[in-house]
């Protein structure tokens, strides 16, 4: 009998510790996180502000996020992305289902579909500007902001976790390309 493959999980091809480019720029790759996508039906959107996930309301301002774990980001008018580093998918799923109650919704486990890369340092906004047209200044993209956008030609969700920390949630299949792109853009920054 072949060995159960659960014990043979593939290792990421990305460098474990990420990379430090300078005092003002580093990229890190945190361990895989539970990632769920919550979509709420049109009729239930009217009462979405009453939903509580693990005791916290869903963020209802466009392009905003709340929470510590899970972190909940509003990425479309009827869609939220939830990420947890501390809980199992089953626990978060249970919390979502309990929170949404009898509303019309669907929650999908996409933990295997996404990888998170973290940019830190004062040059992070300049790096992001190499691949995306959004305004990354603090006045326009606050520490409570997130955006589903296009970065380095890829669909990506960017969340400003703090003043100089940006989390990029990207499709797993494009992680290597995105990491290579970051390295190249960082080189352009160094040249500037």
């Amino acid at each position, binding site marked *: *009998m072949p060995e*159960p*493959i659960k014990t043979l*999980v*593939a290792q990421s*091809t990305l460098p474990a510790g990420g990379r430090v480019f300078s005092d003002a720029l580093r990229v890190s790759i945190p361990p895989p996180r539970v990632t769920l996508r919550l979509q709420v039906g049109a009729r239930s959107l009217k009462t979405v502000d009453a939903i509580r996930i693990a005791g916290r309301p869903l963020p209802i301002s466009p392009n905003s996020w709340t929470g510590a774990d899970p972190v909940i980001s509003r990425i479309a008018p009827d869609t939220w992305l939830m990420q947890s580093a501390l809980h199992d998918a089953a626990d978060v799923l249970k919390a979502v289902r309990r929170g949404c109650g009898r509303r019309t919704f669907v929650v999908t486990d996409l933990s295997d*579909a996404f990888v998170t890369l973290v940019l830190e340092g004062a040059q992070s906004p300049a790096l992001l500007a190499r691949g995306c*047209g959004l305004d990354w200044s603090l006045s326009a993209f606050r520490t409570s902001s997130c955006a589903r956008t296009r970065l380095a030609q890829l669909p990506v969700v960017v969340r400003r976790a703090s003043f100089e920390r940006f989390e990029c949630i990207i499709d797993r299949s494009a992680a290597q390309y995105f990491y290579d792109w970051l390295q190249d853009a960082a080189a352009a920054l160094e*040249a500037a």
Partner: protein
Amino acid sequence: MGFRLDTGGHIDRSQPIRIRWNGRKLSAFAGDTIASALLANDVRIVGRGIKLHRPRGIFSAGVEEPNALVTLGRGAELEPSARATMIPVREGLEVRAQNAWPSIKFDLGRVLDFTAPLWHAAFYHKTFIWPSWDFYEWFIRRTAGIAKPPKKRDPARYDALSAHCDLLVGGGGPTGLLAAQVASRAGLSVILAEQDLECGGRLLATNLLINDAPVAVWLASVLGELAASRNVTLLTATTAFGLYDHGCAGLHQRLDLQGRTPSIRQRYWRVHAKRTLLATGAIEQPLVFEQNDLPGIMLAGAIRQYVNRYAVAAGRHVVFATNNDSAYLAALDLVAAGAPVQLLIDSRAEAPAELAGWLRKQGVEVRAGTAIAKAVGRRELRAIKLGSGEVIACDALGMSGGWAPSIHLYSHARAPIAFDEESRSFVPRESRPSLLTAGSVNGRTTLAESFADAMRAAERVLEQAGKSADGLVAWPRVEEPPVSARTGAVERVQGGREDKQWLDFLHDVKVTDARIALAEGYEHIEHLKRYTTCGMAADQGKTSNLNALLTLAELTNRKPADVGITTFRPPFTPVTLGALAGRQTGERYAPRRLLPAHAEHEALGAHWWEAGGWMRPACYPRAGETVHQAVQREAAAVRAGVGIFDATPLGKIEVTGTDAAKFLDYFYINQVTKLEIGRVRYGLMLDENGVIIDDGTVARLGRSQFLVTTTSGGASRIAQWLEEWRQCEWPDLEVFVTPVTTQWATIAVAGPRVRDLLARFETDFAFDRKSLPHMSFREGRFAGVPARLYRVSFSGELGFEINVPARYGAALWRELLSAGAEFAVTPYGIETVLLLRLEKGYLHVGVDTDGTTAPADVGWGAIAARKRSDFIGKRSLTRSDNLRPDRLQLVGLTAGDANVLVPGAHLRLPGTSEGSDGWVTSAAMSPALRRPIALALVRGGRARLGEKLMVHDLEKTCEATIVDTAFFDPEDKRAHA
């Protein structure tokens, strides 16, 4: 005879520099441009006209230069058609003339000038007809163009980025600088782009006083403040080349011109500005007279720039001809620098008294009411001939036909312009809240007027931002000569040769060409432009558009305002493709997506294909095997034993909700609502025109939950397609669309021994025919992890697709290979899948279909007709064109020659030599049948089974027979085993 003055200029005489001009060493100083260095070394001929190869000299000192286009460097770093007026010298810089053979001084192409009447505007439309265009094409391609591009790959790196600001200032002249200073002091974020290497604009070429001090003091103060300001981005050698919707502007930054060797050569800025202030200045215009293109004839303002900025005098016997006041200032500065000026002629009836008086005091003769008729000389200027017939010897002529505001960027925004009678040029008609203009672009001629304009614009910007400009900046006091905007009408001296009067120097367009255009009925300025190509050259008509319209007005007895001006379009100056591409080249041209088991495929020696953005194994060649041999081996192995294939890129979309079945019914031409839970149905998806856009399966997971699969390349597109219809057309349906493609790794296992392999794994799935019939779906566990199992076949063999969470994809692949070792399990790639598919005659959407293929063309007409409920594209299927019997229809082909039966080969009836009856869409040598097979789109093909056609591939032909599409196991017994 140009020469360097002993004193003056902004050059650094302590830093001598040597450059090479056509192999000859020339001396220059830091701060020189190539053009100023050439002038200082008395190089008169720097280029040749594009069509007639007449000698051309330096004409301007800026971005408008039409003549001094030169080639820089060699090999991979060669840069053709660089404007010598914009490129600073650097040690060892190699500069070569272009568009001349054997040399710039003696160009055999000049023979075209001596036969010029043959080469008038649009001659090529009427000349190369007999015997055919092909007869002349080789020669024309050899002679066309003005430079040769580099043949080697550009090794330089480029950068591109987006930036946001409150105010974008286009132009770093006095107007732009003052406005930027006010805005920055008010706290606005400002980006200022100046195309020159230095900010200052016209101040760099003047000797005025600002606040009782030389202009350099004011300039240094403002620039220092702006450079130190955290909210200002000051960009030099950066051209704002395009202005687009929503305040978006494109900037082209030439880092390679900024004095050091940068690792990034150029940068493309996409600036999103809340407001844009255009302080883009004005461009001096030439006068139109006979032989106005001779070397030695320059713009008067350029002569002033060269003397004040580079300490270079354009000649030893200089004459000026003008219709406005500005040339007087150039003449005054030249005299002040110690260079002799003989004469200034002014076509206006009255010369400006004060300016003329100053000149006369310096010994310069000033004549009003006089126009220049002709420049005399064969290779360069020797003299000028006045309208009175008088000939005056000279070696340089500074001409000024007025100033055309640089409204290009303003026009990009489709903002309105108006003709100003006083300055005889087009100026912006109004400022918009987010697009303002100030300074010379508004027709202002004095510095004081421009400063006032800048302050007004800045106040308006601040007011819109809720701020005040009060007391932010003290108004600069200026002492300057009394210059007015009054510009005389351009009155050409009649009687001269119009075929020697140039309107467009870069495209060799003359007054006679305008006359020919008129004779052909092209009276509109846009028609004139296209017929003569006036203004269509790389300089975008900066010194030709205005004269073309004024000449057209003169020739048609219309007012210039009635003639109008052509539409300006980006880019304002040429932008390299490298800059536009930025870092998006080579491996970063487009994202490459990797499979979860990428490393495992690599270890197996995969031959990679890029398909739908994914890096996929095409096949796994063994040592000594070609790709073709590997594909044949893998296909045979799947038919005989068992193979595994990484199908992860297969599009997967979950469609959930109480209305999910109804929703999906709109997308497929077959019924979805009646699909049973646990069953799978294959279907085609159409667009509104009834054209097939994708195919795939629908699996019913539950009463209101479906899993849709799409083609790999269509995964993202179809998810968007479903979402668009959900949001825009059926928002009331309770349905959710969730793409889950990369959540799951998918391994297809196929072949007659597949059950033997799967039986070795711990699983709660049953794989027997009764428990899991063909086209079924189950959820459960496989090898200890959650799994989704399809029983489907895209190879025609008994097959299953195992989906596990992507993190387990690589492990599952390894375990299947390991467990299947005793069955000689064979990994197979996407090219092998396509061969197996072809043997079965399965459709490959996008390959076996084109942008017109409807269901009936691939044998699905009856299924579509049976469906009673509505679906996207249904109505279009009954359009007359979709019912034509001679539509291209998918059929099979067999032939004896595999070398001719290739994709793209055309099909004709035997005995015919023209037209096409269709083409081959897929073809291969079938290992199962041991003969070449193909699918083809053939006119009325489904009714022509058994008919013979000739296959044509380039020079080769062979006979083929139209057959049914299913070549192998037509009863589908193997897939149902």
